[in-house]
């Protein structure tokens, strides 16, 4: 029984932290800071997934946790960091909606997801219930971030934190098959998005995406 309580508490703590980190993303107005907070987001997700793998005795989930850790907490932030440096947009401050309204909206969304999910899952076991409610909060906060930001990089970060919420939901649903495949599919999607921004932002800066501009770019890096 003690172990049952402990496993519940830790899972609860980690899922709750993910929501908290989502809130922290909302008020970042510098891209570097936002990127660091996102890396933290992915780190918390990896810990949460690993904990689920442990308590559910589902070794394949460790793979999902590793993907979250290596790909989302290290590789993607590093790649985006490079893009930000290359494009010289690290000083940009951008918020479409002010911090105050964004936070208030965020709180409203979290309240909404609690009301919706806790009510409809009254019969499910408490862990899955709370996980799902937290996951929906993270998804909605990610969406909020995507609509309140104008910059392509921060939109992608919003999408990735939305996706972290989905992985949280999928791992919280005990015994769900294909979780690893789905997280791989999402990683591929994100990799494409990051490449996409790279091309997109180059166009904005040089007003062309022809191969020459890209070649010039590559030359600079080497």
């Amino acid at each position, binding site marked *: 029984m003690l172990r049952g309580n402990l496993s519940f508490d830790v899972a609860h703590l980690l899922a709750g932290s993910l929501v908290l980190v989502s809130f922290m993303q909302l008020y970042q107005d510098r891209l570097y800071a936002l990127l660091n907070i996102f890396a933290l987001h992915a780190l918390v997700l990896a810990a949460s997934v690993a904990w689920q793998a442990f308590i559910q005795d589902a070794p394949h989930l460790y793979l999902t946790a590793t993907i979250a850790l290596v790909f989302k907490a290290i590789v993607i932030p590093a790649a985006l960091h490079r893009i930000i440096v290359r494009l010289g947009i690290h000083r940009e401050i951008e918020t479409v909606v002010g911090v105050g309204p964004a936070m208030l909206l965020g709180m409203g969304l979290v309240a909404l997801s609690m009301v919706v999910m806790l009510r*409809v899952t009254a019969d499910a076991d408490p862990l*899955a219930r709370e996980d*799902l409610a937290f996951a929906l909060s993270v998804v909605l906060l990610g969406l909020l971030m995507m609509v309140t930001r104008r910059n392509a990089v921060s939109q992608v970060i919003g*999408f990735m934190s939305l996706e972290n919420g*989905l992985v949280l*939901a999928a791992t919280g649903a005990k015994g*769900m098959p294909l979780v690893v495949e*789905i997280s791989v599919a999402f990683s591929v999607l994100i990799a494409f998005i990051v490449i996409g921004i790279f091309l997109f932002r180059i166009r904005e800066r040089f007003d062309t995406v022809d191969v020459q501009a890209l070649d010039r770019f590559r030359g600079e890096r080497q």
Partner: protein
Amino acid sequence: MIDALAGVLLIPAAAAALLALLPGYRMTARLNVVATLLTLLTAASLFVVEPTSGSYLLVDDLNKVFIVLTTFVGFTTSVFSASYIGHEMESGRLTPTFARFYHAMYQTLMFAMNLALVANNIGLMWVAIELATLTTVLMVGIYRTHEALEAAWKYFILGSVGIALALFGTILVYMAARPVIGEGVAAMVWTVLITKAARFDPALLNVAFVFLLLGYGTKVGLAPLHAWLPDAHAEGPTPISAVLSGLLLNVALYALLRFKMLLALNPGAIAPGPLMVTMGLISCVFAAFMLYRRRDIKRMFAYSSIEHMGIIVFAFGMGGALANFAGLLHMTMHSLTKSAIFFAVGHIAQVKGTQKIADIGGLTVSNPVLGWGLVLGVVAIAGLPPLGIFTSEFLVISSTFAREPWLAVILVFGILVALGGLFLRLGTIAFGAPRGPTAKADASYVPMFAHLAIVFTAGIYMPPALVAGFQNVAKLLG
């Protein structure tokens, strides 16, 4: 054991790998045609020998219709694509590397759509639709102009959010199924879900369906989630516009229909019909008005696709044997007609060197075959008798009038507004004195007229076997 079911997946997958390696666009274009033809023949054989369904793949009467339609339009589009891409290569808009990439992506898209249709697992279906989204995004951005990249980006972001919401809905369906079926793969398998759906937690299913409707509805192009659709259609290569309108929207709709069947079996769940009816009506009327202010010819027909998807979703939302039959027929007719129109539009844009409606005029004089082909296509899509879309629209409206007269009035209003918008533009595009530059049309007219011939025939006579098949599927849909 390789049966026809594996065939519709393996042929495009192998072709994609092969086309990615082979140089020379003439040969790859031909190979592309051969591969899609083989896929079509394999798909047609599903009607003769029905392979056994497993826990990952499934063939039943419902998806057979979709598979055959998908592979057929996939085949004719590849024929059109061969001449279209040839012209693009000659005019220098595409480099050989991109042409090779394009053909590999075309087959990958065929693979992804077939996989989504035969998937017996809701997780696998989701992965397939995601793959289809990715490939189309890459193809929409293939010209790498400012507008093309922006369209691809918009499609990417909206499409990703859509499939993310759909995944959340999928997870919720699993959560609803788990207490009844138990943990593991079985709780995501269609054939199992459908037998136990009555005992699922209705509250969870309701929330799941809302997410699925928003998620897959984005991919169907329902207003107000349609924002990606016109841009993606207008800026990508025209064969892709044809495939997007004719097939990919259907595939997303298919996913939605499957989940609708699931909800319909649960007595405690909300009726999914009214939600679909509302979104369908909004899409139809909204898109009909949007037709009037369009300056780009491909964008105009993209809005017409939104309008027709609205009608189809409306028909399936109404439900019942007759409305489902009408919806199914309308979907088939729309796929055939809209891709025929895009075949015409693709060559028109190449002949005129522009997609701007203001610069295109008098086509029936300058390029009679293309011009009259377009006229015929627009007459069909606007729903004039005796063509196929008239039949299906008539069935949708008459079945609605019997049950909800007011909804039918709104629908008729939308259809008439759209008809006005289409003919207003058609007048300047097709008739009068020729305007703008005219190059020689190096076109393949066969796919366009083949589609139009089918649509024309279906308006007058439908084979009893086809009617019986559609009626059977309509009954399945409930």
